[in-house]
C-alpha cells in the first residue's frame, strides 16, 4: 500500500510494473492493474487544461484569497490534477499556458514556467 503523500516534494504515484504515473492514489494502477506502486517525482512541468477564477469564496477560510485561480493541470507525465495557478494575475491565465510546480501551504501549486 502507498504511504501518505510526501509533503516535502511534488510526487505522484507511479506503477513499477508499467512505469506510468497516475493520480489520484489508488490500490492498483489504473493503466495495467499492477499493485507495485510508489511515490515518484515527476518533472513538475505541465500546462493549464482548464481554469476558473473564483470570485465568491466557498467559506470564510478562503475569503482573503479571492479572486484566485483553480485549474486542472495536465502534467507532462500525463495525469491531470486539480490545483491553483499562482504568481500571475488571473486574467492572464489561459488554456495551454506552461506551468511549473511549487510547494505551497495547501499542497503543490503551479506558476507560469519561466
Amino acid at each position, binding site marked *: 500500500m502507498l504511504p501518505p503523500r510526501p509533503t516535502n516534494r511534488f510526487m505522484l504515484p507511479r506503477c513499477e510494473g508499467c512505469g506510468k504515473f497516475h493520480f*489520484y492514489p489508488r490500490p492498483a494502477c489504473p493503466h495495467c492493474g499492477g499493485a507495485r506502486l510508489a511515490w515518484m517525482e515527476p518533472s513538475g512541468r505541465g500546462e493549464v487544461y*482548464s481554469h*476558473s477564477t473564483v*470570485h*465568491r469564496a466557498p467559506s470564510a*477560510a478562503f475569503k482573503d484569497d479571492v479572486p*484566485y485561480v483553480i485549474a*486542472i493541470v495536465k502534467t507532462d507525465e500525463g495525469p491531470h490534477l*486539480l490545483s491553483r495557478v499562482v504568481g500571475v494575475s488571473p486574467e492572464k491565465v489561459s488554456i495551454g499556458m506552461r506551468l511549473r510546480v511549487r510547494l505551497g501551504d495547501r499542497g503543490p501549486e503551479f506558476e507560469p514556467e519561466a
Partner: protein
Amino acid sequence: MNAFIAGVGESPLGKTPDLNAMNLQHAAALAALADAGLTLAEVDGLLTTPIRVAQWAMPVGMVAQGLGIRPGYLATLDVAGASGTAMVHHAAMAVATGQAKTVLCVAGQNQLTNVSRDATVAQLASVGWAHPEYEAPYGPLIPTLYALVAQRHMHEYGTTPEQLAEVAVAIRGHAALNPLAHKREPITVADVLASKMITTPLHMLDCAIVSDGAAAFVVTAHPGKKKPVKLLGQGYGFTHAYIGEHDNIATTGAVQSGREAFAMAGVTPADIDVAQLYDCFTITVIAELEDLGFCPKGEGGRFVEGGRIRLGGELPVTTHGGLLSAAHPGLAGGMFHVVEAVRQLRGECGARQVRDAELALAHGNGGIIGIHCTLILGNA
C-alpha cells in the same frame, strides 16, 4: 419491462419556512397519490434519497414512518443529481420483478430556509465533490468544478458566454409559465451576463437556485387512471467521481446513458418531442444536448441559439423551469424533470404545453458531470 408512472406531484416550492423536510415530502407524496387515484394504504414500495438539512440515520425508514406505512420493498437511493431519474428505473425493476405493485418515490427538503445561503454554499462545497485531501484545500466551489467544464468546452468548441446565457433565459421563460416555479421573472441574455460573476465563466444566473420543496411520483405495473405514461427505455453512464483526473471533461457520461436509453426504446433523438434536461448549470444543458445526440459534439452552443430550446422551438428543453428557475432542493431536484415529462405526455401543462407531445426524455446528471441516468417516456 412493463412499468408506468401513474401519479406525480409536488409540495409547495420556493421559500416555505413553516415546512420541514418531512412536511414537504408528505405533501408531495399525498399529491402524487391523489393524482394517481391511489391511497397510502396501497403503497407497497418506497424509494427516497438522503437529505442534508437534518440527520436522518435511515432516510427511507424516516419517510416510511412519517407517512405511516410499512412497505415490503424500500431503499434510500443516491446517485446524486441522477437520483430523480434513477428512482424511476429502480421502481420499475421492483414492479417488473413483482417485488411491489405500487412504488412511491418521494424526496425533498427545506434546503433554502433551513440554513442561510452562505451556510448552504459552504455545506455544498464540503459535501465531498472535491477530494478532501487533494482538491478541497485549494478552495473550489461546486460551481467552480462546472466552470472548469465550461471553460474547456469554450476552448474546444468556441462556445460563448451568450450561448450559455441563452440556456438560462429559455428555461426562465418556461418557469414564467409555471405557476409553481420558484423564480418566474423573465430575464435576458444581458441580465445573465451582468449578474455577479461567481467563478469564471459562470455568473450567478448560470447557476441553479436553492429552494425548499419536494417531489413525488408513483410507479406501477399497470397504466393507472390517467392517460398512460410508460417507461420505454433507460440507461446509465458513469465516468468519475472527482473531476480533477478526468481527461476529457467537455464530454459527459450522457453519451453512454443516452445511447442505451435510445436503443432500449427503439427511437432516436429526432423522435423526442420534449427534453427535460438536468440543468444545474447552463453548461450542463449544452453538454447534454450534444452527448445525448440532439446535435453533433461541439454544436451545443449554436444549437441553443434562435429559440431552438424554447417552447415553440425545435426541441423545448426543461419546460417546468428546471433547477435554474423552478426548484432545486438538493437530491430531489431531478425528480421535477420526471414530473414535468409525465405532465407533458398527458397534455396537462397549460400555457407551457408542447403540442402533441408523445415522446419525452428526462435526464439526470450527478456529481461533477460524473454520473448520468436517461429515461425515455411515452404514451403507451
